[in-house]
């Protein structure tokens, strides 16, 4: 004799939720979009100036998705992922972003609303508060300043880890960028 169901009035069980695990992050084979700034004057960095160090400061960097190396080139707007990292190509240095790998939470989990904080909100900042990076570019800036009056900054993102939640085209996003020189 067949056993009676425990609760005959209960609706049929819902179909099990389809579980498809998020894939392994991989290096992207598709080149990401490069960024090139407008030209800025660099008279402050000319040979007549003495400075011990020059930094490119990049602020407000989005780091919620792919991880990547940001290769910085001066006066080489055509630089891409294949461009060798040499002084002849205007290579000035690299920075590295350890991305979060996309949002693994419910809708809104990765939205940063720091500007809406109340005065007495003492919780830690949102982990995706944008990042700041400094690239020391002393020699590259000296080289450029000895031959040119202006500089453009090109950032070539080379994706090192991205999953299907990551935009691998529009990878490098920032709010501000500046060159800072320091005397000894």
């Amino acid at each position, binding site marked *: 004799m067949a056993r009676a169901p425990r609760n005959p009035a209960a609706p049929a069980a819902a179909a099990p939720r389809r*579980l*498809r*695990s*998020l894939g*392994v*992050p*991989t*290096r992207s084979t598709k080149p990401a979009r490069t960024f090139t700034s407008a030209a800025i004057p660099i008279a402050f960095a000319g040979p007549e100036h003495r400075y011990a160090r020059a930094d490119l400061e990049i602020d407000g960097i989005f*780091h919620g998705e*792919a*991880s*990547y*190396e940001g290769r910085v080139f001066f006066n080489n707007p055509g630089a891409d992922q294949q461009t060798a990292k040499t002084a002849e190509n205007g290579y000035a240095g690299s*920075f*590295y*972003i*350890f*991305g*979060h*790998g*996309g*949002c*693994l*939470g*419910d809708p809104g989990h990765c939205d940063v609303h*720091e500007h809406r*904080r109340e005065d007495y909100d*003492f919780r*830690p*900042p*949102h*982990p995706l*508060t*944008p*990042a*700041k*990076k*400094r690239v020391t570019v002393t020699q590259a800036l000296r080289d450029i300043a000895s031959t040119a009056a202006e500089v453009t900054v090109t950032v070539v993102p080379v994706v*090192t*880890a*991205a*999953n299907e939640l990551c935009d691998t085209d529009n990878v490098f996003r920032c709010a501000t960028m500046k060159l800072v020189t320091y005397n000894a």
Partner: protein
Amino acid sequence: MADLRIRLGVHNLSDAQVSAFRDSYRQMMAIADNRGYQYLAGLHGTPSWYCWHHQQNAHTAQSMQLFLPWHRAYLYNWEMAMRDRVPDVTLPWWDWTLRPPRQNGVPQIFSDRSVGGQPNPLASFRMNLPNTQPPLMRNTARQPGDPAELPSQADVDDALARTDWSDFTDKLEDIHDNVHGWVSGDMGVVGTAAFDPIFWSHHAMIDRIWWLWQTKNGNANISTELLDVVLAPFTFRVRDVLNPNDLGYDYAAAQSAIPVAGATGSAGAPAAGAAGGSG
């Protein structure tokens, strides 16, 4: 007072030390509660997201650079959990500046797929996170880059030469970010990095470099505003983790016990000696 725990270089571990290290991870991976690998690794990225990276300046003009102290507190708790399983084991550091023939990329103890006919617990971990969106229920994997692209000793020396705390921690974090991307795979993104067993030895290397910097530069450079920040979910404040010796550990390249029983002449204190190698 008990001896300090000595964290050793992965490249110098004896067979017995590797075996104890593996055994601690194997046992932690078998525990599903808050003493186990899954829970503790999940504090970093998904599902708990406690980790600190970059400068986060929501409340103050002071840069909230907590990357180094937060991870020191994390490693302390991790190593304690290891020792709950295997007494006397310590967390070894992966020196990714080493080049062939000493090492070529991911050390073999982490890359061997199996050991003695069993899966190598240092190679991978099966994540079991059915409630993330989408779920994460698979083994961790890596896609390492060209070993020549790993940070070099010159990169580390560049960081160590920076005498300002803010400058130093930013530079060291950038090197750290580079290594995560170099390993790639799950180690390559914040959300899953701590589930990869090599994560912990990478961070021990970062913690060691900070300690090397501290021995030269002290802690006076760190903003006093940071000192009383609590490193949640742990109970430490920043000031509590500034000195590894206060947390009961130190770093060495290698350690080898020298038998003194039966030795001729007059022996001193009968403690096992610590012999630091050259790295």
